[in-house]
């Protein structure tokens, strides 16, 4: 991987060659360094780490359970009756509900993205690697799916199979794989023709070794970047479904469901909208900053 460092900027390359003993930095070392210099991305990673920890252990630490109804605390404002962020129309603690909602939204985001990742990478890499008629056919299929009004089908899926938690994962994952497959396919196609692949072949490397050592690491960058940007898109889709009443069902909740009830009761209890909306927007922004930061770090050409 030292070669990657030597290629651009001939003067520095020559200098490095003179001191051959200097340890080369790998592509990923470089990317990590660049990412850590990106303040927005680092702050976002810290924030997400905090949110993730809160979503995992938080619900066990709150004094109230997320579905515990307290008749005396109906619409308790923040910081009253022991409710840090207030309570909803049934007197349920908002903090506990936000933590559960965050957990649900984050897990839907990660799992649905994983689903889209598996389908998209497999589909795109196959098409790109096979090339020719198979590629044409497979990508035409993606083109056709691309033009469908997908949100309607997700809604129909929800209607058909009830509001099953697992199904929300799958349905959204099935919608989001298309772009991933296009990216992977394009990347595979162009990588296949690169000189370094030719060089590896000339050097006698076997096909699996070329795929493993040269294609996959180069594919990984764009895939990681796009996956990071898919997570907030998925969270948004789930929240949208919950908002129009087709997502996660009571008493379980997601950030979208919380925002939906918050919007309805905004005149009486504005905190029911503010806090969930804040957590949601902060989460989405953090993912976007990390995604952008990763893109700049992995593919500095675009900067």
């Amino acid at each position, binding site marked *: 991987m030292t070669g990657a460092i030597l290629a651009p900027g001939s003067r520095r390359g020559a200098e490095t060659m003179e001191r051959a003993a200097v340890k080369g930095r790998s592509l990923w070392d470089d990317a990590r360094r660049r990412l850590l210099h990106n303040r927005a991305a680092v702050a976002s990673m810290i924030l997400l780490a905090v949110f993730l920890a809160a979503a995992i252990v938080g619900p066990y630490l709150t004094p109230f359970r997320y579905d515990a109804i307290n008749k005396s605390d109906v619409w308790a404002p923040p910081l009253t009756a022991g409710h840090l962020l207030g309570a909803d129309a049934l007197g349920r603690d908002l903090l506990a509900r936000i933590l559960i909602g965050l957990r649900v939204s984050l897990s839907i985001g990660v799992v649905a993205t994983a689903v889209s990742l598996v389908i998209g990478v497999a589909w795109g890499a196959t098409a790109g690697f096979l090339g020719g008629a198979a590629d044409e056919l497979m990508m035409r299929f993606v083109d056709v799916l691309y*033009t469908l009004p997908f949100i309607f*089908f997700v809604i129909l899926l929800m*209607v058909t199979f*009830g509001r099953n938690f697992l199904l929300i994962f799958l349905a959204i994952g099935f919608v989001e794989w298309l772009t991933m497959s296009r990216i992977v396919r394009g990347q595979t196609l162009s990588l296949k023709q690169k000189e370094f692949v030719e060089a590896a072949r000339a050097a006698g490397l076997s096909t699996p070794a070329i795929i493993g050592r040269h294609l996959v690491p180069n594919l990984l960058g764009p895939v990681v970047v796009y996956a990071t940007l898919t997570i907030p898109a998925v969270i948004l889709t789930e929240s949208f479904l919950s908002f*129009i009443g087709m997502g996660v069902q009571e008493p379980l909740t997601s950030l*979208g469901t919380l925002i939906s009830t918050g919007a309805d009761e905004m*005149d009486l209890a504005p905190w029911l909208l503010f806090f969930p909306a804040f957590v949601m*927007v902060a989460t989405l*922004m953090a993912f*976007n900053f990390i995604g952008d930061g990763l893109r700049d770090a992995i593919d500095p050409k675009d900067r």
Partner: protein
Amino acid sequence: MLRFFLRRLLVAVPTLFLVITLAFFMMRAAPGNPFETSRKLPPEILAHVEAEFGMNRPLGQQYVSYLAGVARGDFGPSLKYQGKSVLDIIAEGFPTSLTIGLSALVLGGLTGVALGVAAALRQNRALDYWVMSGAILGVCIPSFVTAPLLRQGLASDLGLVPTGGLNGPISLVLPVVVLALPQIAIISRLTRAGMIEVLRSNYIRTARAKGLPERVVIGRHALRAALLPLVSYLGPACAGLITGSLVVEKIFNLPGLGKSFVLGALERDYTVVMGVIILYATLIIALNLAADMMLAALDPRVRLS
């Protein structure tokens, strides 16, 4: 050009067919039926009602006769609203949805392009950072957050515009703004990226070198090429607006088509759901087709590949 068009049309028609087929069978696979959502009917009455709408026949037969109806432009009667056909419901709701959708598209397009160009011309300076930060906010703050906040602030507290309902053009201001915000964000990002790339190209240097005023270089030479990516965004923008309209029509209580769709899906009003899906799918497919054609007309590279 004609061959290009025909080839794309050859894909568009089966796509629409696929949409209709998928939607038909998914809708029918849903548990429950349109006649029993609020109360249980005695089996004889249910059988009678179903027979009246031809729903006692085998599903395959119903599918074929539905397709035949659609081909004739007959989308059948609504199963929930007595005496109303699906076309009546579409005729009632579509004008509202179309108005807010188109207005949001125009508002989003004009504002987004203006902001994107301004940011690109002052790349890495204060204005650029402001526009791009705003764009990130616009992408990350969902419409179901902006809508209630704006409604509370501008409608309830300040009383500048109505809080909801359809009451003259003023009642559409907030819905259009809410729908347009994410589009402004996306379009300004696309425009900025396109513009920055174009401004680096050789022909722009040539244009400047031969002494053209900056206004002409930007307005006539750079903008044209920079806006090409926007053409292919037309289809996704339309899909985004339709999705957004489901939210906006709910929050602002507008009698649009999005509302009919969500209600129809929940109440198993099969024919209404199918009608709305077919209409919107046709719209999106047609727009994608139009975008492809426009791109091919504007950019010879697309035609050749």
